């Protein structure tokens, strides 16, 4: 029963989703939208589980004094302080100028922007590794990258030739590879869906 009921649910809902794609009737749309609403409802309840999980994981680290346990104290302090400020009675938290929004705008957003900015440096180091001309294929990759990058820079009389080459690379070999990728992904996704709906793949339910 522990596996039969979830499997019946997965198969039933899976087949319904497949069938409703081909039936544009209102009744099917309503059930489809209702199912999507359920995802949101489950997500909201699961957030409580998430909060509990984060709290317990951090508490365990502090209790056991695992390496870096100080960060767990900061995590817990930040979590509960934001909860307190956000839920403090008699004060709207999601309005401009509230303490909650000030913390969000002037602490959280700049930290997030800083993390995102790191990407630029990581791209440079990854590009250095990827573009080393060690093999024929790596050399082709390097040349293609140079042509694509130079298309944004004025090169005098060479601009027209470089532009043509860049467009060719982007619209012919690059596009062909992308389409091959998407076709493979489409078939793979269909195969995975079929395996799950037919109950061939049940590892996510606890059966190997």
């Amino acid at each position, binding site marked *: 029963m522990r596996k039969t009921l979830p499997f019946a649910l997965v198969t039933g809902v899976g087949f319904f989703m497949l069938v409703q*794609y*081909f039936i544009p009737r209102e009744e099917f749309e309503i059930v489809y939208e209702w199912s999507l609403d359920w995802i949101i409802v489950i997500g909201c309840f699961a957030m409580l589980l998430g909060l509990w999980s984060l709290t317990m*994981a951090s508490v365990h680290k502090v209790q056991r004094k695992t*390496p*870096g346990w100080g960060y767990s104290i900061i995590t817990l302090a930040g979590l509960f302080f934001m909860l307190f400020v956000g839920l403090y009675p008699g004060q709207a938290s999601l309005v401009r100028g509230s303490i909650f929004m000030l913390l969000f705008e002037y602490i959280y957003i700049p930290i997030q922007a800083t993390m995102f900015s790191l*990407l630029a440096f990581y791209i440079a180091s990854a590009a250095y590794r990827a573009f080393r001309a060690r093999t024929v294929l790596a050399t082709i990759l390097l040349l293609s990258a140079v042509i694509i990058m130079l298309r944004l820079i004025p090169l005098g009389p060479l601009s027209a030739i470089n532009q043509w080459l860049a467009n060719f690379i982007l619209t012919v070999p690059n596009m062909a590879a992308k389409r091959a990728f998407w076709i493979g992904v489409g078939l*793979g996704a269909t195969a995975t869906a079929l395996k799950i709906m037919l109950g061939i793949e049940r590892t996510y339910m606890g059966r190997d």
Partner: protein
Amino acid sequence: MKKIKSILFSFFLLLFLFNLSFPQESSDPRPPTEIKAFDTPNDNGHAITVIWKLSADDGKVKNNVVAYEILRSDSPEGEFEIRGMVPVGENLFEDKGAKEKKDKNYFPSHKNFYYKVRAKADKTFSESEVSKPAFAYGQWYHTGKTTVLAGVIVFSVFALAFINLAKKGKELYIRPLAGIEAVDEAIGRATEMGKPILYILGLGSAEMIATIASFTILSRVAKKTAEYQTPILVPCYDAVVMAVAQETVRAAYLEAGRPDFYKEENIFFVTSMQFAYVAGVNGIMLREKPATNFYLGKFYAESLILAETGSVAGSIQISGTDEIAQIPFFIAATDYTLIGEELYAASAYLGKEPVLLGTLKAQDWGKAVVIISLILGALAASFGFQFFLNLFRVQL
């Protein structure tokens, strides 16, 4: 003086007669004709399509039509209300409304409506005849998706046939994937080093196919880590994903006969904010120094930051995603990458169960059908066989 008066009189008389010799044209544009209203095909039953023949003054003769207004009433003599407007030169309008009764723009199905079209000039207009009644109703089959249905049926037949063959014991060859073959080696390395394995399911939600594929791989990896007694850490971005991951790992440990070794706190929620999650996971990488990092699932801009940090931490890294924009980053920064469909196939590769391998063979045959269709399509387009090309058109 008299002569001048006589000349002026003659001039105005002639002008008057000249003007009379031509019929005075009205500034009203001529009305649209042949108006037809019918249920919009392949919809949920809350729309009617109206078509008409353009006014004779649309773009020619008087050339004074500026737009068409479409009016609707529930009786031919009733009061017509404006439902919309289309620019000059267009002769189709879809009168579409909401399906919810409480919505202001509710469009009832199975109710007769009458339409007329108004050709508008700058200050005047003229109206067509009233159309025959039409009512909207939902269809039981979307004819525009027949190609998709055929594709699903063909693929399912392939899959079932190969699964059946596999069940009967026929050996199916599948090409080896370096990323999959490295999984055992990566887990063994972690065991030898006495360090944990970090498994990242990505930023996808639990219903995404890439995340589902990742759960199946997690199950196989967790079973091996349970056998080797190597800790596995799964920091999650989504709370639902965390709940499923906990259940998956717990079941894998049970399957391996080591439920006592399972630690729920190792599969934990971090945050649902993208870069806060990255910061948290990077911290874990640099503090715990995991021997192996798995990045399997849906990844976005954080992919490279994670993979580069893992590289700095000295971990062996296996990645896989169906996000095409992140594939180059993973290839550059990780040791092995599962590209697109290989992520979905990984579970079958790791399990080596015949029925799972059957679907992999079906994928190969599906690709063969696609390649043949592409060649035939290119030939059909080159030689003008429109019929063949139309077979592949999908209306969404």
